């Protein structure tokens, strides 16, 4: 049974249909890249999978780990192993990273039937993962994402992912706004988490990220539909000929 099966998924926001029938099957251990021009629906797909209420699902089905994903609350999705790395991580003044992450991890552990981590074990885990992402420990006591640079926010997302160890990670334009060093760092963090039990959906506009996180499959999204699927060579082809080579344009420009 596939880890994730999306069938004819339709979704709209503010009465405008964005996803117009998505079909996608992801097996455990696979990395799928979703590429597409601006406005093609990439981020909408990522947010719908995480359960953002802003997007209204108007048709189709998503089966995750044998369950009806669309019937689950965002927190239940997270507890059953879905993680969304946000394109725009949210700043939450007044809530420290440490408190936030501990609350998140312990809720997720509890739902997996594991014991909550005590303060010391938690700190050791967090320190180890921070080292991996070359993050300064003082960030722990700062409010979530508040005053972080764009790069720090993206690193913080991957750091959270490393701590929470999801089954299905959805990375929404994690590369946008990163310089090459930060991109390498983030990619290293992501690659370290590749495993036969874990699947990833990597949403990106550019091929650049896929040089570092090499996908098993590439799908091209246009106007709310997957118009082409292939292996990693499809990304390279896109790099050479651009979306226009496939007859695809940015929705705004169309």
């Amino acid at each position, binding site marked *: 049974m596939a880890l994730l099966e999306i069938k004819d998924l339709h979704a709209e926001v503010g009465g405008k249909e964005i996803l117009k029938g998505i079909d996608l099957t992801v097996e455990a251990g696979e990395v799928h890249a979703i590429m597409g021009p601006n406005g093609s629906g990439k981020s909408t797909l990522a947010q719908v999978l*995480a*359960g*953002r*209420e*802003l997007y209204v699902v108007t048709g189709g089905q998503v089966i995750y780990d044998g369950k009806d994903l669309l019937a689950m*609350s*965002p*927190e239940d*999705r*997270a*507890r059953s192993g879905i*993680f*969304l790395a*946000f394109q725009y*991580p*949210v700043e*939450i*003044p*007044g*809530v420290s990273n440490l408190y*936030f*992450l501990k*609350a*998140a*991890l312990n*809720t*997720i552990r509890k*739902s997996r039937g594991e014991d909550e981590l005590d303060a010391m074990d938690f700190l050791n885990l967090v320190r180890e993962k921070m080292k991996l992402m070359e993050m300064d420990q003082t960030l722990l006591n700062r*409010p*979530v994402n508040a005053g972080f640079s764009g790069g720090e926010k993206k690193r913080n997302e991957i750091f*959270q992912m490393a701590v*929470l160890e999801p089954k299905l990670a959805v990375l929404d334009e994690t590369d946008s706004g990163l310089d090459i060093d930060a991109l390498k760092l983030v990619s290293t963090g992501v690659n370290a988490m590749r495993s036969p039990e874990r699947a990833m959906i990597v949403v990106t506009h550019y091929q650049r990220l896929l040089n570092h996180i090499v996908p098993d499959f590439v799908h091209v999204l246009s106007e709310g539909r997957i118009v082409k699927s292939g292996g990693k060579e499809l990304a390279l082809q896109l790099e050479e000929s651009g979306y226009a080579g496939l007859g695809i344009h940015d929705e705004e420009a169309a």
Partner: protein
Amino acid sequence: MTAVAEQTGAWLAEFTGLATVAPWAQELRETAFQRFAKLGFPTTHDEEWRFTNVAPIARASFKRGLAAGQVTGLTGGAQAGTLEEARQHLGRLAAFDQNAFVALNTAFLENVVAIRIPHGAVIQEPIQITYNGVAGHATHPRLLIVVGADAHCTIVESYTGAGNYFTNAVTEIVAGDRAVVDHYKIQRESLEAFHVATLAAQLGRSANFVSHSISLGGALVRNDVNVVLSEGTEATINGLYIVNGAQHIDNHTSIDHAKPHGTSHELYKGILDDQARAVFNGRIIVRQDAQKTDSKQTNKNLVLSDDAVIDTKPELQIWADDVRCTHGATIGQLDAESLFYLQSRGIGKQQARSLLTYAFAQDIVDRIKVPALKDSLERILFEKFHEHREK
């Protein structure tokens, strides 16, 4: 009988039953009572009371209670004085000519808590004054704090109680030149209680005054904070009010820049749930003489229900021309994106709401410098928001 006489009549009986005090104090009482009888309780036609209807207080009848403030932490030269010692300052800052509640409090002067901090004394330990309301009773706590020049002190006023009662408090603070005063008022009255209080502070040259007003309890609450700054004075006037059910809280502040080079920062934050109602009125006066004044006022409100109501109003009276004054008010709900972000990490919706609500109050709590007070407040807030989510 007029409505005013009806309302003040019961108080007259109580007033005439008071034991006499020294002639000067007796005279002050008499004058104050006459003023109260003339003013009567304010109505919503009175601009200062437009959004706060005190009819429930005017209609109620209470026995006269003893405003016995428990004072702890008098160390390092801080002294408790008597009514006689208070004579020089008492009633000079908290004017009762226009405020019926201050007049009533002054009419019932009895157990004045007077605290004196000698010149230059640095008192480390917070001086705590605690009042406990008793059902069926009205009390008029009166506090006078005189801080000498160059002295440092921390004052914590706390109000608690059980049942339906009426606390009508007045605090006067005189801070000498360069004095540093950190003042806390923790209002945790019973949810059936009425609480009306005025804090009046006269601040010396280059004095540094911080007021933290934390209001959690009470059915009907009105806080007035009136501060007058001198040259180079720095005043920070902060407040946090958290109300739910049918609670009503009204905060009126007045910051009077009387002299040049004064600085004032004001931050009041409110969290409203259910049918609660809150009022914020922030008056900033910059006198003609008060050039180079720097004043900033902010009122932020988090509204958690559809039925809660907040009325917020800045009131700037600026007579000087070389000043910087800013003000702003916000009324908002919990941020949907922040909620989703927390949920997407496995945190349940209700817990996420509590967490964000708590976070909203965090910067006021962070400014509390007395560790024990900060800890206890954090615990109280945590429980309060936990309660909310259990509903």
